């Protein structure tokens, strides 16, 4: 094949290059810039190489936050994905209840993150919150402000309440797209309810589930507003996830260098996890 030299093509690509440059590359480069320098004041900058990265990667508080973060995301996925599939399976497929269920499902997703945090913060208080008071009435000692476990459960519950709907709606869309003939064939083949789920519904849901898992993983891995509103990362450091840690570092202590290095590591972790997951799923379907 003869290659045609046509430099006009560059001109046509230019708008995209500019857009991506300003929206992604330049901000990211700023962070890279911070991460390799120690900036004492606008006039005094010292190039420090990989020192911040080294420090960040050996920071014990960061290891703890990362551990909590992984545990949290794993818990979110372990609850929301099966729950979302289960609810989607229970939703009606025709009639007026379809729209009713859809609207009810979509409602939590319309609420901003910090409002969700505030709602649950008040809801969980034993003195003025319905949930907290009810638990106290049942004799359960629940206090998210002092018990790390309670704080954890509350943050987890918030996310489940807020985002399970997303999984439900994705799965529901996947389920209604399955042609009726599959169910008829399964019925003729004498398949049990479980077999129908295992061999028809679950395989057909694979693509939407990949999207659901990726979205919920990335979102939960970057969770910030809810624990911030609830306890500000406490009690102690119990709900200090990576974003909290980063904010404390960058804005609380104004350690821009380590914070920038940490941001990059954070970004790479999300990217790495998503890539690993996506590749694993793709390979699974090929073999």
């Amino acid at each position, binding site marked *: 094949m003869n290659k045609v030299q046509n430099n006009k093509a560059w001109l046509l690509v230019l708008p995209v290059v500019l857009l991506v440059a300003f929206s992604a590359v330049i901000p990211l480069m700023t962070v890279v810039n911070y991460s390799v320098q120690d900036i004492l004041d606008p006039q005094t900058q010292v190039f420090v190489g990989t020192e911040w990265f080294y420090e960040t990667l050996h920071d014990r508080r960061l290891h703890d936050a990362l551990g909590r973060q992984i545990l949290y995301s794993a818990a979110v996925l372990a609850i929301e994905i099966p729950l979302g599939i289960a609810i989607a399976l229970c939703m009606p497929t025709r009639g007026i209840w379809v729209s009713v269920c859809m609207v009810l499902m979509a409602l939590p997703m319309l609420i901003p993150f910090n409002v969700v945090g505030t709602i649950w913060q008040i809801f969980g208080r034993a003195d003025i919150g319905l949930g907290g008071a009810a638990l106290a009435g049942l004799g359960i000692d629940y206090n998210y402000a002092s018990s790390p476990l309670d704080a954890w459960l509350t943050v987890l519950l918030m996310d489940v309440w807020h985002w399970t709907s997303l999984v439900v709606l994705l799965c529901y869309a996947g389920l209604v797209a399955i*042609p009726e*003939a*599959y169910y*008829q*064939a399964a*019925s*003729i*083949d*004498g*398949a*049990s309810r479980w*077999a129908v789920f295992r*061999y*028809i519904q679950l*395989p*057909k849901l694979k693509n939407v589930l990949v999207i659901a898992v990726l979205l919920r993983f990335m979102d939960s891995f970057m969770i910030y507003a809810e624990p911030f509103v609830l306890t500000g990362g406490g009690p102690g450091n119990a709900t200090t996830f990576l974003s909290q840690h980063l904010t404390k570092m960058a804005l609380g202590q104004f350690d821009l260098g380590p914070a920038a290095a940490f941001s990059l590591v954070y970004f790479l972790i999300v990217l790495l996890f998503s890539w690993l997951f996506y590749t694993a799923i793709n390979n699974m379907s090929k073999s």
Partner: protein
Amino acid sequence: MARIHLKNMAHSYLPEPQGPQDYALHPLDHVWEDGGAYALLGPSGCGKTTLLNIISGLLIPSQGQVLFDERDVTRLPTKARNIAQVFQFPVIYDTMSVFDNLAFPLRNRGFAEDRVRARVDEIADMLELGAVLKKRAAGLTADAKQTISLGRGLVRSDVAAILFDEPLTVIDPHLKWKLRRKLKQIHEQLKLTLVYVTHDQNEALTFADRVVVMQQGEVLQLGTPQELFEAPAHTFVGHFIGSPGMNFLPCRVDGDAALVDGQRIPLGDSALAAAAAAAGELSLGVRPEFLSLHDSPQAGSLPVAVDAIEDLGNYKIASVRLGEHAIKVKVPEDQPVAVERAQLTFNRDFTRLYAGDRLLG
């Protein structure tokens, strides 16, 4: 294997049907013999899928019964009916291998694994799937997938009937004949009752021993391909079957002949006898195959104007006019046809008389 008896059966999708217009399937009473190959033929929306779903158990008819070998299965679920069905597009279990697909109905019924293996191998041999047994079913071609769907039905040795719902729709043309031949072969080998739904007359006529022609929820005729061709019971059957369809000319009966625009066309005795008692508009029906064109007048021939001649390779279709009426005539390839005027003769034995769309005699 079973004889299927549809006893006084009708179906309406409305809870309280008011009149015939509310019925998706008008009352019918049919016995489909054990081991027969039946085709349900008709245009989209004629009720053939409704009928199929009633037989497979997905629908319960509003009235009447479905009997398999005198056993009433009207209210039995699909699972309990021992039928197999092949759908319009291939239904396979994507995550399973071909072997597991074929074994699925047996495993669901709790067969021991060694019996499953023996039976699946047997069916795979019959369907020529032996080479791909270990492959994932999802990666195969459409016709192989349809074969697997069929195989899932056949692995059960107690299967009463196999239902096909337009199974060749998504198959490439060059593979259609192959799959159809396989179906025929299986039918001859196993002597199963087959019900084949299609809107393609060629498929129906080549596949089935008996064809059920349907229109707007009504069974117009149940007969062999030959009967449908030679004596369509309804003008719709005449139009729908054959290419081109049957010619129909409004007429009245005078003595031993039909009068069409004052021209006499001789009729058979049975048609004449029935015509005496018939009510409604009469029309005369004759297939293009049972007409012939001549250059010079013959005994009983009628003068016609020739409008056009289409050469279709191994035969020609002449469009002629008898008075006001357009008629199609099938002419042998080697017969020259005059361009303007010709003489038309009718084959008396295959000239039918219809009253209000129904065949007389």
